[in-house]
């Protein structure tokens, strides 16, 4: 017996309320505009919202954007060319930019510098000669160059006054401006990471995809292969492979060779991730459905399985870019990586190889600063991306 029937009849009638309003079947499922926005958002949009909350990651992303953007217009930004030599200023220390000359505002300018050879230490010294201020020129014409190797131009954002010099970060053993070289080096150092990750990404997707989808013998072979590659210490193997690149290759070929070598050892982590994910996903119903409808394996993998965790893969790939940049830097530092005239940050650091440089010309170590910034930025950026790509948080 239900409790309802125990109650007096009159009370039951009173409680039984029927609304006279017209019935709207969608009323319970009515979403507020806010909810609608959230539920209808695409996966990438959700990722972007989540990513935005990660303050450091956003800043890092901006830093990377600026750095990569700068490589597009390096020629404008650098005050000098990559190979312009100033034989009068060898190992010149960084030059100071002043604003005030004898108490009055002149705007940014530099002083002349004397050249003194210290006969005791045989060191070149360049003390300032505060006589005439040389005002910096902005949006000016300076060293001529070929923009992107194609168009002859001479436009610079900043150049020294006629007859004066502007070595904001000093010069190296041939009197080349370190700042300009760092800016040009960014082109090589930054692209080598992207190019390398593109190759290793493709390798990881294909190999991991095959191993995960087919399983069985292919899987066993790939697993063994990964294990073997992983039991090599990265750097020595990189060293060995880049040392056997033929000496006769042109520097640009070497650049691609080194990129390939870096990628060749990097795909294993990605392949493992793809494999384990595919092993699970290929048992899902929608995969069976696709197979029954006659989809080819390449379509099933590429169209149905991979997109499900692509965002996550991209995030983890971002995290392995810094390793490649560091690898290239280390190889070039040791002198078995890229070769001049190709200039990367590692090639620049190659000049700072011994302790004398640290003691006498510390500014030659400055190319390490952008390396550190890029590595940090990629780490934070990748962390933020990974958190954003994780749907379970």
């Amino acid at each position, binding site marked *: 017996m239900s409790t309802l029937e125990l109650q007096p009849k009159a009370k039951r009638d009173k409680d039984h309320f029927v609304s006279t309003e017209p019935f709207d079947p969608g009323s319970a499922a009515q979403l507020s505009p806010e909810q609608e926005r959230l539920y209808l958002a695409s996966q990438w949009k959700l990722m972007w919202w989540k990513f935005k909350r990660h303050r450091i990651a956003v800043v890092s992303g901006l830093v990377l954007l600026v750095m990569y953007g700068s490589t597009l217009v390096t020629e404008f930004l650098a005050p000098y060319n990559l190979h312009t030599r100033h034989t009068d200023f060898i190992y010149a220390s960084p030059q100071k930019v002043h604003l005030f000359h004898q108490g009055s505002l002149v705007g940014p300018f530099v002083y002349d510098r004397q050249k003194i050879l210290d006969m005791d230490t045989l060191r070149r010294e360049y003390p300032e000669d505060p006589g005439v201020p040389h005002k910096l020129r902005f949006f000016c014409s300076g060293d001529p160059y070929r923009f992107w190797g194609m168009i002859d131009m001479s436009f610079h954002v900043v150049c020294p006054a006629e007859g004066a010099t502007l070595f904001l970060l000093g010069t190296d053993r041939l009197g080349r401006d370190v700042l300009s070289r760092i800016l040009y080096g960014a082109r090589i150092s930054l692209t080598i990471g992207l190019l390398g990750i593109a190759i290793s990404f493709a390798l990881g997707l294909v190999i991991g995809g095959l191993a995960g989808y087919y399983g069985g013998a292919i899987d066993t072979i790939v697993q*063994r*292969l990964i*294990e*073997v590659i*992983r*039991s*090599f*210490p*990265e*750097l*020595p*193997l990189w*060293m*060995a*492979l880049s*040392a*056997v690149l*033929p000496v006769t290759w042109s520097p640009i070929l070497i650049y691609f060779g080194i990129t390939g070598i870096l990628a060749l050892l990097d795909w294993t982590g990605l392949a493992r991730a793809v494999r384990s994910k595919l092993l699970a996903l290929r048992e899902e119903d929608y995969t069976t459905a696709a197979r029954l409808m006659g989809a080819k394996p390449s379509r099933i993998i590429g169209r149905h399985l991979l997109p499900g965790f692509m965002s996550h893969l991209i995030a983890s790939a971002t995290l392995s870019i*810094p390793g490649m940049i*560091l690898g290239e*830097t*280390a190889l070039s*530092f*040791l*002198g*078995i990586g890229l070769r001049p005239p190709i200039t990367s940050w590692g090639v620049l*650091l190659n000049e*700072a*190889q*011994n*302790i004398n440089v*640290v*003691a006498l010309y510390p500014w030659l*170590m400055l190319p*390490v600063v952008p*390396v*550190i910034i890029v*590595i*940090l930025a990629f*780490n*934070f950026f990748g962390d933020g991306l990974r958190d954003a790509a994780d749907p379970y948080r």
Partner: protein
Amino acid sequence: MIQYVVKRVLLMIPTLIAVSVIVFTIIQLPPGNYLESYIAELQAQGESVDQQKVAFLREYYGLDKPLPEQYVRWATGMLRGDFGYSFEFNMPVTKVIGDRMFLTIIVSFVTILFTWAVAFPIGIYSATHQYSWGDYGLSLLGFLGIAIPNFMLALVMMYVANVVFGTSIGGLMAPEFIGKPWTWDKVKSVLEHSWIPVVVIGTSGTAGMIRRLRANLLDELQKQYVVTARAKGLPPRKVLRKYPLRMALNFFISDIGSLLPHIISGAEITAVVLSLPTTGPMLLNALKSQDMYLAGTFLMFLATLIVIGVLISDLALVALDPRIRLQGGVAR
């Protein structure tokens, strides 16, 4: 248990064979026959070539034989302790190497100990004080440790040590011990000299380990048994010490697999900068002059070191963790 150990050790053999094939391929990669190029170089320098010796070397290493046979000779030679011939030093590789490999092992081992000693307390602190200022500060330090290339760190440390302590810290022992047999004093001297390389090599590995340990411990701290232990009224310290820490210890052992290649890579380049008498500088030289037997030996040695390191960590894990012992030992 014994079954697992035997299986695990046997599994190592195909891995090592595959490693040796790769190393041999790398040895063969430079164009031409290195013996011929060596002779050509000698003749170009106007030095006389001992034809008998050349003939002997060619015969001994089977350089005129097909590649598979050369490989078998090289690989079986290694098993007998014959690693080939260094054409740059003009003597067998075994003699060139001396105790460099031993020193590499020592440096790597001490670095692992250092990494553990630093990463353990910091990782625990960061995990238990998540999002505190200390956590942020230490995380930032850790990130910096990852981002600074260790060769630069080595250079700067060398300079600082030179200026502050007034000592030259190149090398791994006081000069009077070089080439001397191992005595207690020599060991002490090595330990005294090895702290800078150890710190330099250890930083990036430590930073990575702190991050992984922190993440691991954070996962562990959210599990229900921790909540239960707390609900029972255990003091926080005891909860930490009794349960999650023991799980984290496990992770410490299993992490060797990713730590060891890192440390060995770092050790090579740091050794070049600090000119330590380990494998690093000599490997670099051998590669630059394409003295491939020597380079191949080093590569083989470093890879073997990692394979054995991972083996030891796997076995230690089995001994420590009953879950692996029960599942992995029987089922696998």
